[in-house]
């Protein structure tokens, strides 16, 4: 390498030695690094409130409160674009509550207690789970 190239390499790596750790820190500072801790912490909150109804299967644990629905997704869903819907009395999708992606706790505001829920991927037209309370 020429002197110029050696100098360029040196300054590039001095810059990267500062820039890359900065990216890493800013990107991870809001992340909950330990998922188990995250769920445990939220479970404590759940126990402080009295759920009106609870349903649990292999995929989710759903707790209904007066104005809120808490969904604990036990494992990341195979379908990346899964959406959770309220189910009406006819057993069909009614209101859209939100999207589910990775394992964790999701909270959705509700106006009325739903009859049940449906989790489905509308792109692939696949239902992950569906149940009545």
């Amino acid at each position, binding site marked *: *390498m*020429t*002197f110029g*190239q*050696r100098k*360029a*390499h*040196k300054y*590039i*790596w*001095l810059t*990267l*030695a500062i*820039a*890359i*750790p900065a*990216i*890493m820190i*800013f*990107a*991870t500072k*809001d*992340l*909950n*690094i*330990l*998922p188990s801790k995250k769920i445990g912490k939220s479970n404590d909150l759940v126990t402080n409130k009295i759920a009106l109804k609870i349903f649990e299967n292999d995929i989710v644990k759903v707790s209904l409160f007066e104005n809120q629905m808490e969904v604990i997704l036990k*494992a*990341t*869903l*195979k379908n*990346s674009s899964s959406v959770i819907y309220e189910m009406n009395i006819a057993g069909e999708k009614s209101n859209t509550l939100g999207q589910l*992606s*990775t394992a964790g706790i999701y909270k959705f505001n509700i106006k009325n207690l739903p009859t049940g829920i449906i989790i489905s991927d509308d*792109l692939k037209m696949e239902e992950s789970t569906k149940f009545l309370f």
Partner: protein
Amino acid sequence: MGLDYQLVLWSKYKKSYDKIIVLGMLLYIIIFAGVTLIFNTETSVETMIIRAFGSLAIIMLHIILVIGPLARLNTAFLPILFNRRHLGVSMFMAALIHGGFSVFQFHALGDINPIYSIFTSNMEYGSLSNFPFQVLGFLALLILFVMASTSHDFFLGNLSAKVWKRLHMLVYVVYVLIIAHVFLGAFQQETSLFTIGLLVIGFFIVASLHLITAFKESKIDGVKAKGKDGWLKVCSVSEIEDDRAKIFTVQNERVAIFKYDGKLSAIHNVCKHQGGPLGEGKVIDGCITCPWHGYQYLPINGQSPPPFTEKVATYELKIE
């Protein structure tokens, strides 16, 4: 060193290295698939392919980035440097499979142009936790494409070594883009202390090796020969081994003084091919031979033997 351009200038060693690259890549994909099938049964085949080839490309990029400084610190790594371009093209292939499947799975099934969709499906450019990280991966893939498609000696010869080197130093931009792609993307969706730790350790190793090498080279650049009457006193003849050279810094550039057949020659230390350190090579068949890719120059005038046309600068010597 060949007179005509060939798609690949195969040699026994190159074939061996390429077999190691292909087998290594296959082995990684098989192990990744096996571990995924055992521990993450919910993962779809498409997702498994995306993750397997994405992680493979990142591992290969780290290996590529450490080869240069390792070869500067220890000549035992020179044979790997010789084959680095094949590793680079293989890494691009892995990244292309990762990117291709990702674009197909997340952007190709709608009615919007998939490339347009990459840039517009998520417009939260101001957010860290929801940043459109796929854009970063796409830009990295574009740069890798340019680098892989110009990696051949044809482009090196026609673009000039200086332009080619600058173009291929974009690998550092790729590294930053990929680190940001992973940290602002994959980790936001599926946080794993293990994989974050691996990338942090990888960065620490890559950056440390580059900085150690850079400071070592700066120290060598700082050593100046003493001048007298327009001449620089460098060393005594007995300090130079036969068919080898000693390297000195003259006005910030390095000059290699070779001893061969009882004669001495001083030439610019930088090979015209990829900037290899000629003074770390040796005289083979009467020619100074670059330790990186075997380019040859006549010690007396710095000219490549005919019909080659490369020439490096020579310097006058005086023995007292």
